[in-house]
């Protein structure tokens, strides 16, 4: 990056004061150390500092000095060089400074620190990346603290409120809102996002912030949220909040739409189920049952030719297939018990299910619309059914996007001419590590091919250790919040290459609402403070003591006494007679 002092002489520059002087190389090749008094306590861990390096590619013009590059680095650790002797600390009421003053050291600044800095490199605007100078700074170079404006320009790919930007918060080491951290929506959607945090660290809060950003007029995104806990219901306030609308003439105005599907409204058409889904829904089928069912499925799909079919059709097909098999088998093995068991299971599974329906299902163009955020609430639905819902939906979505992109469809239910972003809460339910569930394969496929067909996925999980490592490593933008569990920390470190070890060491120290953002969405890993939500948060824990107290409040006690009063059928009155 060119130094403004050399390029724009007319604009007065704010006075820059060096904060320290380099001492020498650090522990590793890409580290250096510098020494600072740091009177103002600004050199925090993770803070950004730079030194200036003459740009050898650009010679000085008109006798002026050559332009300089600012080589940015991040402070890794801070080692005090001058400490009071332990014995000075022996009296709690006496500050050690007073002891030092008594023996003649009366300058108040005694602190001196050695700061270790990881070299990030100088920012190359055309490529949007940091280029390592491959040489540590000379000793005795002045070190400057990177100013807010500089950081705002180079840490994030996009600027605040720019089209395709998602401002999720501001840099943690600076004042709130001083340096906005802006994700590049294009990179985040095309190469997927992962939000990983322990419970209570604020992952659904962060996800909601990202959704809010996506729904603002500068993005107008097409978002689907799969919400197994029903935490995202409060996002419907987006429809009324002024931030999410844009005035325009006639139909050109914009207002974000939120559509919340309650659990009972989430339907899966039985005819979209494949054998894998059946296996998941009807666990522990015998080999014979599986064989019969797969043949029956094939048959019913062949006969119906793309139109819908129901449980009755499937049962008929099972019977037909079994008859056909009996005819083929000359030795006359009897399949009647298998057929009976299978039809009974199919009947029992699907006849009274409110999720699996003969005709209704989620209409893709209805749930996926630019400027609309759809929330599928899957609470109260069995986990196995949830997996099938996600699997069928992703399969249909993937097919629709694939066919639309390839020009195979031009209208109708399977025509989706825009990219979509799917946010998957509790992702470890849908792609657990160690075992294969019905949604794992399609999720892996979408993650691997989604870039081509415009399906972006955001995975949210509180147990990265339980999430399939392949799935996690496909997410190129990572938002990692506080993780205390060591196994989870290790699995994050293993799955995510983009974040340095030094940043991950901060994981247990992060507070609620602080997040390490790394990967494709930003230029360099940063620690960020998540901004305030515009809408109310829904995923809060219950206040148990408060609710217990309410149980004994006068009103509740009275109403409970009335409702629990025994109805004695006027017997007391009878006795009186």
């Amino acid at each position, binding site marked *: 990056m060119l130094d403004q002092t050399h390029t724009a002489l007319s604009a007065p520059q704010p006075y820059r004061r060096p904060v320290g002087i380099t001492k020498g190389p650090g522990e590793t090749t890409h580290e250096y150390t510098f020494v600072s008094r740091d009177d103002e306590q600004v050199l925090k861990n993770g803070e950004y500092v730079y030194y200036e390096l003459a740009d050898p590619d650009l010679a000085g013009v008109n006798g002026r000095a050559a332009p300089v590059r600012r080589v940015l680095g991040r402070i890794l650790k801070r080692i005090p060089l001058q400490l009071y002797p332990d*014995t000075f600390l022996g009296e709690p*009421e006496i500050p050690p400074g007073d*002891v030092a*003053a*008594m*023996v*003649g050291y009366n*300058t108040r600044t005694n602190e001196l620190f050695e700061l270790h800095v990881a070299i990030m490199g100088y920012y190359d605007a055309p490529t949007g990346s940091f280029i390592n100078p491959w040489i540590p700074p000379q000793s005795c170079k002045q070190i400057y603290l990177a100013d807010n404006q500089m950081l705002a320009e180079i840490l994030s790919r996009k600027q605040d409120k720019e089209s395709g930007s998602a401002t999720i918060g501001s840099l943690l080491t600076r004042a709130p809102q001083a340096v906005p951290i802006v994700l590049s929506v294009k990179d985040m959607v095309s190469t997927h996002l992962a939000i990983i945090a322990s419970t209570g660290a604020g992952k659904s809060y962060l996800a909601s912030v990202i959704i809010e950003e996506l729904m603002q007029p500068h993005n107008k995104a097409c978002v689907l949220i799969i919400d197994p806990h029903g935490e995202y219901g409060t996002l419907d306030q987006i429809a009324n909040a002024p931030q999410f609308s844009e005035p325009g003439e006639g139909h050109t105005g914009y207002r974000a739409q939120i559509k919340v599907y309650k659990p009972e409204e989430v339907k899966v058409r039985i005819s979209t189920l494949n054998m894998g889904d059946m296996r998941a829904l009807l666990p522990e089928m015998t080999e014979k049952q599986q064989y019969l069912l797969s043949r029956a499925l094939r048959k019913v799909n062949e006969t119906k030719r793309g139109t819908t079919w129901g449980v009755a059709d499937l049962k008929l097909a099972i019977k037909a297939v079994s008859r056909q098999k009996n005819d083929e088998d000359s030795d006359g093995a009897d399949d009647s018990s298998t057929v009976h068991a299978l039809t009974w299971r199919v009947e029992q599974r699907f006849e009274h299910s409110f999720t699996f329906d003969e005709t209704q299902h989620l209409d893709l163009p209805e749930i996926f619309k630019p400027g609309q955020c759809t929330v599928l609430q899957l609470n109260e639905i069995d986990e196995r059914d949830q997996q099938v819902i996600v699997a069928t939906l992703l399969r249909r979505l993937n097919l629709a996007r694939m066919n639309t992109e390839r020009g195979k469809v031009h209208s109708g239910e399977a025509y989706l001419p825009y990219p979509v972003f799917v946010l998957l809460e509790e992702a470890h339910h849908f792609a657990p590590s160690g075992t294969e569930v019905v949604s794992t394969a399609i999720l892996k496929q979408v993650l691997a091919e989604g870039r081509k067909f415009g399906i972006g996925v955001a995975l949210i999980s509180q147990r990265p250790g339980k999430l399939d490592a392949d799935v996690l490593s496909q997410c190129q933008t990572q938002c990692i919040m506080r993780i205390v569990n060591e196994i989870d920390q290790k699995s994050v470190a293993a799955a995510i290459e983009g974040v340095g070890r030094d940043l991950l060491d901060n994981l247990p120290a992060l507070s609620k609402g602080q997040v390490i953002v790394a990967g494709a969405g930003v230029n360099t890993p940063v620690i960020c403070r998540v901004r305030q939500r515009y809408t109310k948060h829904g995923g809060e824990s219950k206040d148990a003591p408060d609710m217990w107290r309410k149980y004994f409040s006068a009103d509740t006690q009275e109403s409970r006494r009335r409702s629990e009063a025994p109805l004695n059928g006027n017997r007391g009155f009878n006795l009186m007679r």
Partner: protein
Amino acid sequence: MFIGKIVKSDSHINYVCQINGPRDFEVEPGPADYAFGRFVRAALRSGQGEDPHTPDLGLGNGQRPTTYAVGVIYDTILQNPAFGSLGPRLSNEAQVELFSPDYIAEKAVLTYIMVLGIMEVRPSSDERLTVLSAMHGVPLLSLELGSDIETMTDEEVREFHFFSDPDGIENKAPYLHMGYLPHIITQRNSLLPMVTLRIIDQLERLFPHNLPLLSIVKRNFAWRLKVETTG
């Protein structure tokens, strides 16, 4: 009280003082006056030679501020040239005193004094000294041979240790100083650490409010001197 005169120096801050003998002064100092760890002072002849117009020792001289070097007695030697001459004498002790008094004068008490700093004082009417300023550390000027060594009163010792920092340093309120400690420690003499403890004892008596502060330094010294050297 005058206790002796500078007769020799080992360095810029180490001086040897010969304690006044019986005939030198009206009041002969007793061993308590030149005890180990006692604060003493000696006037520095500053500036007088430079300005010929200054009235020398005239009227009003008493009101001019005087600069004193402040030191501490850290060693005592009893000098006796007769030691070792054990043979018989022609005259006994009483006769020697009568016939050759100079011979007696060769016996002397020598004390070693380390200079700790300087103070500028103005004599007040009631023979007390008002300390105008104090500085701990090595004085620029050296003492001269023959300078008179005086003991210091508790009040003077107090004022030598309790002053505010000179202008330019933020803390203006006076506080307890022991700025000479670092340079005492760097001297190579086995008695100096002990004298430091002695000084702290005196200061504890003079500054009861600063006991916790002094205890830090005292404990530190005591530990190093007593525990670490023995253990």
